[in-house]
């Protein structure tokens, strides 16, 4: 940011080295991208060592949004902690609520009613769509196309309307709670949802035409920041980043939680170029694949929602009163498939109603750690392309 370039705060910057190349002497430069920079999606700070436009090293620095979520988890009862999970991955609050609720339910042993599970699936998938829409739009923004961002937000507003009609909040829902969901669906909810899906599904193709298959966009993202499947697993990348590298791993399929085994859906994975309409310059694991996997996932989410709408049953929406529930002296580690990857909650009880330890495994935290490994030798303009395609949310990265 601006003149914060050489300002290092508490972080130590190494000296700039010069290198002799024939007659022309070039100097390497340390450039500080962030923590306030339009391309860093919040407050990520990347220290770049550049040689002209070439990036030799890109070291991510995080922690500018460290909000002590784990400390708070050790001081509050689980049901009080639900609102804080919203604020971790603030683009996918429903999924975060769901992960924490499942962890506590598993620890305590609460059976969730079937209707609540259906509602959870519907809302988790809707939020996945909303989150991917933001990722889609902001990725266009990173690439210099402003308009897709606003289209994505326009559609997202419709999903937020649905959320609002159900739980009253636009962003931080605290709707999915321990033992079920907080309220039952409002009247006519499913009709409006159906209308929305009818409206939204054709839009996916439209946006692909506008952005994803745009020639310039493909040129900018294809073969940029390639992560091999081996690397992806070794760095514990999850979610669309892992799947774009060609690894068919989605917790909804591989170890189904809730009732995901009842639905029929595909897992989009990264494809090499030249096949199935994929542009020729694309390789598995590049930024374009990371982008398009999210787009296809929106379609699969629509499929899941439609099936859930068809199968939903009547019944109670919450199991029982869960306030002041005693947590056993035990520990649990639960992961679910968040829009950005696998969100894990480690909860350890000690017999009281307040957990002894809550640990959050944020997918963004692991995903962004690979940046330096990937970003070596790319151009300066590729750094936004890589960071944007990894699609981080600093809230859960720093927690």
């Amino acid at each position: 940011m601006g003149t914060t370039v050489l300002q290092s705060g508490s972080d130590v910057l190494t000296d700039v080295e010069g290198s002799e190349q024939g007659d022309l002497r070039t100097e390497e430069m340390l450039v500080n991208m962030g923590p306030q920079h339009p391309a860093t999606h919040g407050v990520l700070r990347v220290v770049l060592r550049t040689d002209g436009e070439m990036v030799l090293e890109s070291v991510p620095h995080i922690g500018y949004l460290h909000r002590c979520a784990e400390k708070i988890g050790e001081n509050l009862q689980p049901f009080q902690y639900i609102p804080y999970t919203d604020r971790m991955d603030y683009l996918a609050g429903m999924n975060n609520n769901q992960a924490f609720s499942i962890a506590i339910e598993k620890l305590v042993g609460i059976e969730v009613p079937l209707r609540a599970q259906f509602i959870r699936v519907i809302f988790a998938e809707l939020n996945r769509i909303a989150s991917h829409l933001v990722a889609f739009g902001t990725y266009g923004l990173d690439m210099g196309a402003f308009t897709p961002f606003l289209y994505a937000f326009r559609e997202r507003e419709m999903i937020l309307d649905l959320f609002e009609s159900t739980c009253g909040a636009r962003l931080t829902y605290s709707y999915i709670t321990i033992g079920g969901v907080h309220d039952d669906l409002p009247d006519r909810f499913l009709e409006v949802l159906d209308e929305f899906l009818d409206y939204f599904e054709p839009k996916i193709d439209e946006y692909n035409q506008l952005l994803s298959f745009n020639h310039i966009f493909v040129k900018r993202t294809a073969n940029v920041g390639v992560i091999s499947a081996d690397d992806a697993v070794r760095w514990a990348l999850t979610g669309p980043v892992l799947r774009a590298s060609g690894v068919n791993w989605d917790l909804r399929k591989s170890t189904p939680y809730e009732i995901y085994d009842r639905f029929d859906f595909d897992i989009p994975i990264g494809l090499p170029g030249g096949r199935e309409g994929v542009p020729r310059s694309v390789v598995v694991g590049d930024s374009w694949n990371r982008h398009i996997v999210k787009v296809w996932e929106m379609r699969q989410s629509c499929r899941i929602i439609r099936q859930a709408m068809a199968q939903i049953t009547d019944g109670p929406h919450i199991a029982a009163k869960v306030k002041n529930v005693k947590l056993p002296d035990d520990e649990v580690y639960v992961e679910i498939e968040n829009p950005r990857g696998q969100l894990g909650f480690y909860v350890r009880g000690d017999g009281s109603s307040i957990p002894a330890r809550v640990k959050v495994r944020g997918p963004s935290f692991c995903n962004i750690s690979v940046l330096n490994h990937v970003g070596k030798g790319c151009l300066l303009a590729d750094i936004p392309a890589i960071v944007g395609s990894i699609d981080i949310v600093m809230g859960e990265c720093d927690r």
Partner: protein
Amino acid sequence: MAPEEICIILTGEFGDGVVDTVLDACRPYAVVRVDGWSDIARFLRDDGRMRFNMLQCVTALDLLEDNKLAAVYDLFSVPVVGVGPCATLRQHFAIRVEVDRDAPHIPSVSGIWPAAEWHEREAYDMMGIVFDDHPNLTRILCPDDWEGYPLRKDYEFPLEYHGIPATTEHQLNSPRH
């Protein structure tokens, strides 16, 4: 493979290296000795029956009553085409390493799972566990000049940081933790 079998294999291979196995928990785990942890980690990753190729999470625990710190490693094996001969297992297991609170040193596994690098930095930042042979063991979330390890149970909240007050009168009057 079931957790019981993993534990049997581990105790068979390492004997004393495995201190304890907890199988009746919500999520079974084995407690291993600190000095044997590197070998066990390499075995868990490379052995054909294990293939834990993905380190998902490193959780640092503060066991104040035992005067110990612990690190819990959550391991997954993810089927990847092309990594090793039979990377088709899908299993989940956890390893717990306990160290003395006064000299918390654990060998780093970032050479075995690169993903551990940041997790270990976070554990160092939050809980003060020192991971030996870590390439860059610095604070990751808090600023470099932060004092104390926030997630320890006996952590004292700072009263100010670089001139910015961290408390208000209201907060001073009400107990923390």
